[in-house]
C-alpha cells in the first residue's frame, strides 16, 4: 500500500496554508487509490496543535523531523532527511508546493531518486485502470494545458500551484500516526543561511496574497502609482505591477506579474491601466476573479476579465477608494 506524501511547509513553527492545500489534493488521490496519506514536516519546531491540524485536514500519517537547521530552507539539509525517508518507505506519489522551496527541492530529489517530476500543476487525478498520477499543468504561457504522467518510475512527483485548490473539510476528530524521524547528521551543508531581510514595501509576497491590485502603463507616472498602493491597502491586498511599470521603476521586481515575473492565483486580481500583453495574461490566468479598470474597451485583458469598468482611472479610483471607506465606516 504505497503511500501518497505531501511535503508541508512551515514558517516560524507554523504550517503555511499551502500545506493544507496539498493535503486536499493528496486526500483525493489517496482515497481514489485506497492508500494512506502522509504529510512530511521538516521544521525547527512545531507549535502546539500544528500536527493535529494536519490530521484534521486529512493526513493519516505525519513524519516529523525537528531540528534547528530546518529554521531556514536549504535544499541540502532537506534532501538529507527526505532521500533516506523516501527510500525506506517507498511512497508512490510525492506532492510539494510550487513555491521557491518546493520548486528547488523537488527537482533536486527527482534527479537523486531517478524519477519524473511535473512543475506547477493546477490539477491532479488518478488514471483509471493504471493508477498512474495524471499531472495537469498550464504550459506555453497558459495557452495550453498539458497532461503528463510518469508511468514507469516511482515515486511520481509533482509541485502544485498554491491557491489552485480549495482546502478540504476540517475534521478535528481525525487522528494521525505521528512518526518522529531523526535527522541524519549532515557533515557539511554547502549552503549556510545568514538571515532573512523582510520586504520593505509589502507584507507578504504577491503569490501568497488573496487580493492583488496591479498597475500598468496607464498610471502614466510614478507618483500616480500610489493610487494602486492605496487601493491595495483598502482591500487588504498586495501591490502588483506589469512589466512596463517595473521597467519604469514605479514598482520593484518582487511585484512583477507575468511571464518574466510571478504567476499568481489570487482570489481577486484587479488590473488597472494594464492593456494585457500575452506575457502579463500568462501570469494571472488562474486568478479566481479578474477585475479590470481601463480606458480602452478593446484592451486584450478584457478577454479574461470577469468585470470591467471602462473610463478614466484617475476619476474612477478616487471614487472607489471613497466608497470602500464609507462602506467600512458603516459596518
Amino acid at each position, binding site marked *: 500500500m504505497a503511500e501518497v506524501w505531501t511535503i508541508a511547509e512551515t514558517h516560524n513553527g507554523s504550517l503555511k496554508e499551502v500545506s493544507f492545500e496539498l493535503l486536499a489534493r493528496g486526500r483525493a488521490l489517496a482515497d481514489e487509490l485506497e492508500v494512506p496519506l502522509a504529510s512530511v514536516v521538516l521544521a525547527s519546531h512545531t507549535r502546539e496543535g500544528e500536527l493535529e491540524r494536519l490530521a484534521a485536514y486529512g493526513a493519516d500519517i505525519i513524519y516529523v523531523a525537528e531540528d534547528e537547521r530546518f529554521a531556514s530552507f536549504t535544499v541540502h539539509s532537506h534532501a538529507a532527511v527526505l532521500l533516506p525517508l523516501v527510500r525506506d518507505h517507498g511512497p508512490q506519489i510525492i506532492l510539494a508546493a510550487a513555491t521557491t*522551496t518546493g520548486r528547488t527541492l523537488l527537482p533536486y530529489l527527482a534527479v537523486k531518486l531517478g524519477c519524473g517530476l511535473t512543475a506547477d500543476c493546477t490539477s491532479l487525478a488518478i488514471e483509471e485502470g493504471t493508477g498512474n498520477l495524471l499531472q495537469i499543468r498550464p504550459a506555453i504561457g497558459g495557452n495550453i494545458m498539458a497532461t503528463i504522467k510518469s508511468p514507469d518510475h516511482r515515486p511520481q512527483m509533482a509541485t502544485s500551484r498554491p491557491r489552485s485548490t480549495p482546502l478540504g473539510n476540517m475534521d478535528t476528530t481525525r487522528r494521525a500516526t505521528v512518526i518522529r524521524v531523526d535527522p541524519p547528521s549532515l557533515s*557539511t551543508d554547502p549552503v*549556510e543561511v545568514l538571515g532573512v531581510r523582510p520586504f520593505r514595501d509589502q507584507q507578504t509576497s504577491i503569490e501568497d496574497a488573496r487580493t492583488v491590485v496591479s498597475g500598468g502603463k496607464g498610471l502614466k507616472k510614478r507618483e500616480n502609482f500610489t493610487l494602486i498602493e492605496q487601493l491595495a491597502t483598502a482591500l487588504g491586498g498586495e501591490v502588483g505591477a506589469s512589466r512596463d511599470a517595473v521597467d519604469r521603476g514605479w514598482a520593484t521586481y518582487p511585484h512583477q506579474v507575468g511571464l518574466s515575473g510571478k504567476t499568481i492565483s489570487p482570489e481577486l486580481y484587479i488590473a488597472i491601466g494594464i492593456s494585457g500583453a500575452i506575457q502579463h495574461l500568462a501570469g494571472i490566468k488562474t486568478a479566481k*476573479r479578474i477585475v479590470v479598470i481601463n480606458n480602452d474597451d478593446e484592451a486584450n485583458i*478584457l478577454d479574461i476579465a470577469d468585470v470591467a469598468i471602462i473610463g478614466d482611472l484617475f476619476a474612477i479610483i478616487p471614487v472607489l477608494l471613497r466608497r470602500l471607506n464609507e462602506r467600512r465606516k458603516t459596518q
Partner: protein
Amino acid sequence: MHIIVPIKQVPQSSDVKMDPVTGTMIRSGRSSTLNPLDLYALEAAFRLTEAHGGSVTVVTMGPDSAANILKEALSMGAERAIHLTDRPFGGSDTYATSYVLSRAIEKIGSYDLVITGERATDGDTAQVGPGIAAWLDLGLVTYVSSIEEATSTHLVAERLVEEGYQRVQVALPALLTVVKEIAIPRLPTLKGKKRAMASTIERWDAEAIEADRSRIGLKGSPTRVVKIETPKVARSCTIYHADGDEATLAAVDHLIDLLEEQQLLKEVHHG
C-alpha cells in the same frame, strides 16, 4: 573564476505548435530566440568575471538553429561556446536535459560556478538548474537576486523568496539560478559581434559527453506528455462604462456590490 552558463533557445512568441503524437514541442521553422531569463544569468556571470577575472563558457542543447543563441552569448562577452546536438537528445524532459548538460559540464572540467536563468519561458518548469546541481552534487542556491561577495572559495548572495530576501553563503563550486532583479543585461556590441563571427562553436554529440543512452532523449525521460488541450477561456466580462460622475459612481457601486456578494471584500475589516 570560470563560470559556465547553460542557455536555451525558446520560441519567439508564446504561440507554438505541439506534436500531437509525442506531445513535445515542434520547434523547427518557427522564429526562436535566447530565453529572455537567461540574459540575467549571462549578465551575472559577466559581472563576476569582470570583477574577479576569468571567463564565461556557454553551453546549450538543441537543434542546429540553437547555434544562434550561442553566437549571441559570444557577442555579449562569452569566451567559449559548446553546442550539444545529436538526434538521440531529442524529446528529453527536464531529467534527461539536466543529465545531458551535467555530462557536458563535467567534460568542460574545472569551473567555479554554474549560473542558469530562473526558468525558460517556454517550458516554465525551473527544474533544469536544480537538476544539474543534483547530478553534479553542487551546492545549490536558487532565485538569487543579488551577489554581495565572491571569493575563490565562497559567495554570499540573496535569494528572493516568499518571506523576503534570504541571505546565504555558499561554498564553491556551486550552481545558482538567478532572477531578473540581479542586473540589467547588456546588449551585444559591434566588436563582440565581429568576435563572435570569428569564433568557432564546438559541437558535441552523445558520444563526446559519454552519455548513458538510457538517460537521454525521449527514452531516457521519466515523464510523458499524454494530452495537450487548448483551454477555452470561459469568462464572460460584464462591462460598466464610467462616463461622467454619475456613471462612475454607479459603476463603482456595482463593482463593490459584486465583490461583496462574492465575499471578496472580507479583508477590508483588517485593512
